[in-house]
């Protein structure tokens, strides 16, 4: 079962890239005799006395006429161990656009340098682009070693030079191979001319490099691409390509943005093959239990592991169009996973100089091949992850509505945090002795108001940011600590008191306690605040202000229905009161695109960490 490796090549033509590709194809016996004959014929016609292997990859008339490469070409070759797709992304002109296009799907980037010239601007640019695009493996081929007398010193010099530059980049796996593409040294076969080199040949490296683990198998994501219905069989399935994580039949899932929860009833591979585990990039069809309204652009994930939901996002973009430029205020159609909406450029934070990595914050626009960081606001919320975490849910393109052209490629860095209107009155004392500063975030609101979802996300982001955090979920605690309590007023007061005490202990220990509790009575919550204030610990009351009608419409556990039917007595909002906070630290409403981010903003602005 040979694997597929996608690689993108880079480096200027003069560095010998075409010769290297030709050599790879030729020495791996992947070049066909009629192709070679055609190259020999064309070379003779051009008056060249050797087969010009560049003609193998320059397939367009204009390319041959001008001796330049205009566009990405895809080449295929195979060894018994692997199949290879080479995106040949060349060109002095338009380098960035071509590199971005060819490299967006690559597992590995191959950058060539000429041993005589060393690491040039071009090499640095391409290495940077590879890093920006999240290509985990980078191979620097130091070519034309024959022209520097197979010098080990020269190779070491170039390697150190490049390594110093690469330290500034996010490249996880960097390899260096000294080669002579012209003579075939270390391309397919190990070289006898460089006995000091102890590594493998380029082809061997390409065959061995481990790429499977580069996918995100943690965060389960299925963007719904197409709904398949078959009336005769009463079949309704959600088709899509798994963008992350692993899905199994029986899994509890939630459909975003609706937030409806369900369960995976069955997963089908193409053609109706039953699938026991679906992982990226499988194209599958998922059936869910229950009647749900799910459509293209929705995303299926696990309840406790959701992507960001929001209309404001920060992204790195590369402008790809010759006409026009990216300027603040402009709007485009944004294509992100299977969703499409309108995006407005709110702000250009800076333009990046690809050569020096300098950030020009005075830039007013991005022109062809320029890269910069922008803030976008979308008409509808997007469901996304940072590109570094997931290339599929973190990438997008911008389309110009008048020409229909793809004008920009984007990589999401994260949600843009909107400014908060809430002022925090700091009251922290005596916590300086601890390594980390703890506090309590107390989420209160009706059943099904969305507290737990926000709490889960907040905890995830805090932990991801290196903050010790722990989720205290009211429902979950009733299985253990509070298993002996009922839902009468006295038991509810006791429930809140106990959770408040546990939260205080966590906060005191330096942990962010995230409590998610209906806690319907004002007096109970106020007591928890007092407990914290006496201990000198910050306590944030966050009111998840979702109207009763909305909560009742969601009703994921069917509790409201039971309460209305009289099967449950004393249910908050139905036949028991909910006392909203009088002066909460933060109010979150259902239309907040990213409630967890608002809490984080509040925490950061209040400098509670320090």
């Amino acid at each position: 079962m040979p694997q597929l490796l996608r690689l993108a090549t880079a480096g200027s033509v003069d560095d010998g890239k075409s010769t290297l590709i030709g050599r790879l194809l030729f020495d791996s016996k992947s070049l066909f005799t009629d192709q070679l004959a055609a190259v020999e014929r064309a070379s003779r016609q051009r008056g060249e006395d050797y087969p010009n292997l560049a003609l193998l990859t320059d397939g367009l008339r204009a390319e041959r006429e001008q001796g330049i490469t205009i566009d990405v070409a895809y080449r295929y070759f195979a060894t018994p161990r692997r199949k290879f797709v080479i995106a040949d992304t060349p060109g002095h002109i338009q380098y960035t656009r071509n590199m971005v296009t060819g490299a967006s799907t690559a597992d590995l980037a191959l950058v060539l340098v000429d041993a005589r010239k060393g690491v040039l601007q071009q090499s640095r640019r391409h290495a940077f682009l590879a890093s920006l695009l999240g290509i985990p493996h980078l191979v620097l081929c130091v070519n034309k070693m024959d022209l520097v007398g197979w010098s080990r010193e020269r190779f070491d010099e170039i390697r150190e030079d490049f390594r110093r530059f690469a330290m500034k980049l996010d490249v996880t796996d960097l390899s260096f191979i000294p080669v002579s593409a012209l003579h075939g040294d270390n391309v397919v076969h190990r070289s006898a001319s460089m006995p000091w080199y102890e590594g493998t040949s380029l082809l061997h490296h390409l065959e061995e490099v481990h790429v499977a683990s580069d996918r995100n198998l943690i965060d389960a994501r299925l963007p719904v691409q197409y709904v398949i219905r078959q009336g005769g069989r009463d079949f309704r399935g959600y088709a899509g390509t798994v963008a992350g994580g692993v899905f199994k039949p029986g899994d509890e899932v939630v459909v975003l943005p609706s937030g409806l929860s369900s369960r995976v009833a069955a997963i089908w591979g193409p053609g109706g093959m039953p699938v026991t585990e679906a992982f990226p990039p499988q194209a599958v069809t998922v059936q869910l239990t229950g009647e749900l309204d799910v459509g293209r652009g929705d995303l299926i994930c696990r309840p406790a592991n959701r992507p960001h939901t929001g209309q404001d996002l920060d992204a790195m973009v590369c402008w790809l169009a010759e006409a026009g430029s990216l300027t603040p205020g402009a709007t485009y159609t944004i294509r992100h996973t299977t969703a499409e909406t309108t995006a407005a450029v709110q702000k250009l934070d800076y333009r990046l100089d690809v050569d020096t990595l300098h950030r020009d914050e005075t830039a007013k626009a991005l022109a062809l091949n320029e890269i910069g960081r922008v803030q976008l606001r979308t008409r509808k919320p997007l469901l996304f992850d940072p590109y570094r975490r997931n290339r599929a849910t973190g990438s997008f393109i911008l389309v110009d509505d008048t020409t229909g052209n793809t004008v920009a490629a984007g990589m999401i860095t994260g949600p843009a945090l909107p400014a908060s209107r809430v002022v925090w009155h700091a009251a922290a004392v005596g916590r300086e002795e601890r390594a980390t500063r703890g506090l309590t975030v107390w989420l209160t609101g009706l059943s099904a108001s969305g507290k737990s979802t926000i709490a889960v996300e907040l905890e995830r982001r805090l932990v991801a940011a290196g903050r010790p955090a722990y989720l205290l979920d009211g429902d979950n605690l009733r299985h253990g600590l509070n298993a002996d309590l009922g839902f009468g007023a006295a038991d509810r007061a006791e429930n809140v008191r106990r959770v408040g005490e546990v939260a205080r202990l966590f906060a005191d220990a330096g942990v962010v306690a995230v409590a998610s509790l209906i806690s319907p009575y004002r007096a109970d919550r106020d007591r928890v605040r007092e407990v914290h204030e006496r201990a000198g610990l910050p306590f944030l009351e966050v009111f998840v202000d979702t109207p009763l009608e909305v909560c009742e419409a969601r009703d994921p556990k069917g509790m409201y229905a039971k309460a209305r039917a009289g099967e449950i007595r004393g249910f908050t909002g139905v036949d028991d009161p909910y006392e909203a906070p009088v002066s909460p630290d933060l109010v979150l409403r259902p239309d907040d695109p990213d409630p967890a981010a608002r809490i984080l903003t509040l925490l950061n602005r209040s400098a509670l960490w320090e």
Partner: protein
Amino acid sequence: MTTVYELSHLELLEAESVHIFREVAATFEHPVLLFSGGKDSVVMLALAAKAFWPAPLPFPVLHVDTGHNFDEVIEFRDRVVDRMGLRLHVARVQDDIDAGRVTEDTGPRASRNRLQTVTLLRAIREGGFDAVFGGARRDEEKARAKERVFSFRDEFGQWDPRNQRPELWNLYNGRHRRGEHIRVFPLSNWTELDIWSYIAAERIELPAIYYAHRRPVVQRDGMLLAHTRFLRLLDGEEPYEATVRFRTVGDATCTGCVESTAANPAEVVAEVAATRVTERGATRADDRISEAGMEDRKKEGYF
């Protein structure tokens, strides 16, 4: 036992193609799949059927008929259409010849292959198709190596290789105005060997002429042409019987065959894996017209 979350390269190619089929079905109003009965279009059809299982194909198929077909292929086409319950459109080159829209080449080497473009564009226009699936692969030919998966065609059906839309990740841009259309190539990243490996693995049925059989042939320009009723013999050409099979199937006047004893998919896979001549180099006379023959035809609207 720990699960290894890896796909074989054939599974990866299949997943990628299925994704493309679904993307088109979800975002276009009137897609159509070009189906000639040739191996690539048969594989396309198999992949499309898989993509929408258990529902039927959400689009019709279109055959551009040069009138110079191998009988076995037309018989196969009709049988598949019948079995799968497909909606078949046939666009005939003969109709365009009869209407005077194209002039047929004369002489013994005449081929209708190039005339197909006019018929294809007429069929696309008349059918109101906004997305047209083609079975072209990037490994076939150097101009095709430059082709996007979603390839924009203007109102004249033309391809502008110097002004293609960037294509990133699996985010395909199908934007077009009325009268324009997108050619979609779900097999872009497949090679001839991949196609045959898939046919073997999936037990996909093909027209019989893909496997070794005896038939009268003629040697011409270093190729073996089938001696059919469409082929006019040149002076000195003497048909003879040989055991051959076809690597590609198209217009009978310009599609060569190769001497082979490979009688089933497994044997063909072995043969293809060992060959050092490309499929088009061996069997397509139309590619030999010039260095950029394919590119020029593609610019006019050919696949």
